[in-house]
């Protein structure tokens, strides 16, 4: 019996082997193994990027009755989702790399959005300044700077804002830093809400927000030369959304690239060292304040660009966009992805942002039609933050290092906890206030 079973299995294996070799798949496999390590590790990334770039072309033809999630996000929502992923990657520099708990990241988002509002709209009617703006009547008042330039300026302005916020706060450690950043995250939206009458000067247009904001575009010269659109919003749907989607995808890739390069640089090492042991990092020649401020500025830079981009995408910057919720939401993405893990944050950011803008609604209506009786319908999106909370708690219980743990944390798990839990021979983190105090060890001459 047993041997017959073995023979049968062996013959199935043999058959499979022959089938595979007949189809040439094994040759593909061999070729794949023969490729350089670099190519093999890059391939998934290239495939994902290719799928993303072509997304506008096939999103319309994707099925709309997928169980549970119903649809993939329509292009308009995909833009917002990617803006949030971009911010999560920026926040990951501060929280993940440098280990600085920032509960007020929304402040950077707001500064970026309002910088875009000031520099590319008719907000300041009393001045008349045009620079590289496209498709704007030349007699219209206000400041109209090319949106491309404004994105860069918004990043720089926000980075400077990050440094200014950082200078007084980064001397604090841990919980105290979190509380102060929380404060700044509340102050900035309150400020923009109320800064419509600064001694008669309307800076932010109060609760109405700044609207409309100029769209990006390529201008008449490029339009007549190679057919690029004058303004993103001048063509017919779905073209504007496609253009906005490709642009934000480009910005996100740029953010990921910069974040990766920074992580592997001298500065990135210094950030991780500070996260691991601040006192030791200082003693090894790392200027703590300056290095932490760079992390803040780096995170703020990308937050600012994201804010400016969402402002031009929505053609407006409104105070209600900048709730404390956003800071928490972004922090959830970083925690869910695995603090410091770039790819984890990208994946978790995409999932959470999708849940927020589309997913929960879709899942809710699927549950209502397929699971619940019509007399007991529920409004799933209403419980969004409760659901995120549950996700975070479950993650902390079952996978505390995140979806895709940062490699150094993953190594720790794979290698077990040897030498740290079972054998309290020594304690790498032990120490008193400055961490270099004395500690009794046996085998020494006792004091008389």
């Amino acid at each position, binding site marked *: 019996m047993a041997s017959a079973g073995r023979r049968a299995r062996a013959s199935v294996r043999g058959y499979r082997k022959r089938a595979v070799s007949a189809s040439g798949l094994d040759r593909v496999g061999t070729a794949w193994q023969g490729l350089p390590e670099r190519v093999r590790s890059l391939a998934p990334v290239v495939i994902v990027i290719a799928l993303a770039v072509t997304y506008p072309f096939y999103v319309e033809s994707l099925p709309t009755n997928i169980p549970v999630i119903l649809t993939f996000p329509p292009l308009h929502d995909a833009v917002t989702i990617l803006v949030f992923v971009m911010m999560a990657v920026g926040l990951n520099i501060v929280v993940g790399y440098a280990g600085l708990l920032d509960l007020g990241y929304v402040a950077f988002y707001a500064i970026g959005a309002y910088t875009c509002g000031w520099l590319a709209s008719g907000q300041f009617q009393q001045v008349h300044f045009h620079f590289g703006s496209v498709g704007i009547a030349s007699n219209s008042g206000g400041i109209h700077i090319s949106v491309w330039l404004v994105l860069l300026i918004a990043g720089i302005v926000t980075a400077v804002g990050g440094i200014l916020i950082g200078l007084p706060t980064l001397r604090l450690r841990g919980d105290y830093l979190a509380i102060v950043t929380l404060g700044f995250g509340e102050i900035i939206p309150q400020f923009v809400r109320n800064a419509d009458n600064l001694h008669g000067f309307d800076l932010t247009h109060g609760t109405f927000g700044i609207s409309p904001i100029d769209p990006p575009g390529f201008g008449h010269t490029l339009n007549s030369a190679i057919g690029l659109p004058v303004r993103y919003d001048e063509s017919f749907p779905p073209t504007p959304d496609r253009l906005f989607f490709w642009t934000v995808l480009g910005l996100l890739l740029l953010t990921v*690239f*910069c974040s990766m*390069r*920074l992580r*592997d*640089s*001298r*500065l*990135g*090492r*210094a950030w*991780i*060292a500070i996260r*691991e*042991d601040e*006192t*030791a*990092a*200082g*003693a*090894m*020649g*790392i*200027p*703590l304040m300056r290095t932490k401020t*760079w992390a803040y500025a*780096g995170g703020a830079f990308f937050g600012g660009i994201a804010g400016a981009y969402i402002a031009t995408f929505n053609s407006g910057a409104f105070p209600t966009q900048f709730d404390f919720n956003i800071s928490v939401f972004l922090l959830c993405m970083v925690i869910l992805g695995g603090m410091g893990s770039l790819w984890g944050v990208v994946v978790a950011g995409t999932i959470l942002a999708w849940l927020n803008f589309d997913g929960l609604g879709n899942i809710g209506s699927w549950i209502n039609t397929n699971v619940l009786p019509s007399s007991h319908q529920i409004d799933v999106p209403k419980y969004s933050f409760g659901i995120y909370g549950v996700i975070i708690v479950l993650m902390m219980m079952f996978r505390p290092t995140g979806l895709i743990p940062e490699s*150094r*944390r993953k*190594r*720790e798990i794979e*290698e077990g906890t*040897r*030498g*740290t839990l079972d054998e309290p*021979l*020594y*304690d*790498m*983190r*032990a*120490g008193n206030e*400055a*961490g*270099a*105090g*004395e*500690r*009794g*060890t046996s*085998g*020494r*001459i006792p*004091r*008389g």
Partner: protein
Amino acid sequence: MSEAAPEMNDDLLVAAQIRKEFGGLLAVNDLDFTIPQRSIVSLIGPNGAGKTTFFNMLTGLYKPTAGVVIFDGQDVTAKPPHAITKAGIGRTFQNIRLFPQMTALENVLVGMHSRLKGGILGSILGTPRVRREEREAEEKARELLRFSGLRGVDDELAESLSYGDQRRLEVARALATEPKLLLLDEPTAGMNPQETVAFLNFVAKLREEQPISILLIEHDMKVVMGASERVTVLDYGEKIAEGTPREIQHDERVIEAYLGKAATS
């Protein structure tokens, strides 16, 4: 000061009238201490004598209540730790403080931070200058690891190294800061006798091959006797004796401080 000036030129480090009070507690009382160029000196004393407090003032973790520290001709009193490291004082910690989740190699590279220049833009753009600097730094770091007796553990996490190797890595990391003065805070604490002997041999080798001075803080008299040229003894924050190891071994006040009054009578 003018009279002391020529003498100071021979010394790598001069600490004058260093005093540290924690509230009402006087931890270090007007201590004068010098470290000559290219020497190994030790600071010993019973637990709580103020050795580590003094040490932390030299490296900028504590600000002295009073006193001046001159290192290599410049006043480093109360400068922040990173500036002191850059000036050329490297240190290890009594309770090992490596970056546990970084590899041995990365730990050493962090030590090189103040000697590298790679900026934020250069790193993002990956300019040839930054790439070359990183490559050279990595080569040098691997060399330092080998010099410190760490083989085949370059890519191991610091926390997974054995205790002796962690001590070695701490020294390698401190050496990566390119110090003129290396401060070792109880480097043999927790080591078994064989490891201690191996470590002291390593320190001797270090002194032969590198142009640096070493200050050894110890608590175990036996360790410093063989290794150092001059020994200073602290008790209750005051210097009670200073001299060659032989002199110190027979000093009555030292024996009293360590073993109690009864031992001397």
